[in-house]
């Protein structure tokens, strides 16, 4: 399915039904963010508390079991990760800063 902002109404799917699975990935919700978590790697102990609480799966964890920097395509800036971090390795900043 190839529907974008230029697709005429005649070529869109009725009711907006998406004939495809796993398509949430294509909807980049990161631009909803007004506050942004910043990862301070030097404070991080890799305790693993942050990524399970992320509602958008926006904290990638590598094969090496280490968390990486945020995926800002999907992070909505809810701040839950910053709240659970015991080591001050995640700080929230205003988006435009």
């Amino acid at each position, binding site marked *: 399915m190839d*529907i*974008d*902002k230029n*697709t*005429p*109404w005649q070529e*869109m799917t*009725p*009711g*907006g*039904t*998406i*004939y*495809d*699975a796993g*398509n949430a990935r294509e*909807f980049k919700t990161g631009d909803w963010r007004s506050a942004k978590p910043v990862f301070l790697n030097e404070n991080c102990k890799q305790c693993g508390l942050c990524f399970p609480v992320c509602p958008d799966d926006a904290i990638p964890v590598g094969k090496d079991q280490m968390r990486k920097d945020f995926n800002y395509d999907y992070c909505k800036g809810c701040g839950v990760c910053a709240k659970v971090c015991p080591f001050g390795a995640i700080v929230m900043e205003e988006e435009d800063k």
Partner: protein
Amino acid sequence: MSIRERLSGNEATAYAMKQINPDVVAAFPITPSTEIPQYFSSYVDNGQVDTEFVAVESEHSAMSACIGAEAAGARAMTATSANGLEYMWEMIQIASSSRLPIVMALVNRAISGPLNIHCDHSDAMAVRDSGWVMLFSETNQEAYDNMIMAHRIAEHKDVMLPLMVCQDGFITSHAIENIELLEDDKVKEFVGTYKPEHYLLNKKEPIAVGPMDLQPYLTEHKRQQTEAMKNAMKVIQEVANDFEKMTGRKYDFFEGYQLEDAEYVVVSMNSTAGTVKNVVDSLRSKGVKAGALKVRVFRPFPGELIAKALEGKKAVAILDRVPLINATGGPLFEDVTSTMFVEGIHVPTINYSYGVGGRDVTEEQIELVYKDLQELKDMSNPYRFLGLRG
């Protein structure tokens, strides 16, 4: 050979549903439609249908369950009235915008308040632009026939819109009349099986129904609904033609009664049309060129055809079975007169609010309407009330 029976409008509707044998019925009781799911649940209990009957806790849930079932690929039906329909309101729009051809029996009743359980059309009129096809029924026979035609219209690939069959609460729903029923196998063949192109339970094609539809898309999806509603005109006609071939009973967008050479015309819907036709007969015998127009298909609105049928008449009265509380005309009046204006057809046209909350509509009242039309001098008072004290 058809089967001659005596049934109430609710019984006839439930009987049609039994013959249609839908996959799912989800309904919550509300007067005067309660009997429909009640009769239907006994068919379920007796094993006369294969339907999954969902006894939900509210009308909001009834419509939600129908939406879920229909999206899954099932044929889903429900029945309601008045405040039940209002409680469905949110989901009514979801059903039509998700293009799910759910079929509903709407037994018309006044919307509270103050609390009233009797007939008027304020429930149907409150959802008139929510994307449902709306058929109105004068008699038990029409309620039955419209229900048999419903799925063929709603599920047509060029339509894919939900549909409601309206009948007058108590007046039609609870009055027992003679009726001609079709044999089960004929209904089965006529209605056919529902084969949606895309549905949730198709494991070969996983889909998402009802996703987020922001600024770049909603306008286009609504335009598609416009097109589907326009397409319904053609499909309604085709289905009525097939129905006529099977039964000999002819259905059109509206019924003209002594209309062609009429000078004074009364436009109405549902059971009142029967009373109007009686008055037309009595006036004709007195030499008055009275005629009547009964709207059967209210959405899509066949405005152009109605306007043309009213062209050249001396005066027209449009009966709206709703309270007039908008400081202008009722919905049927607005729709008819605005299409007349667009078509450049000018006929003096007045509006009556009548029969609200189940107030009796008598032949004497309808005679008064024709009298008003014959004496109509100026249009200073186009918005009138019938059967109102004071």
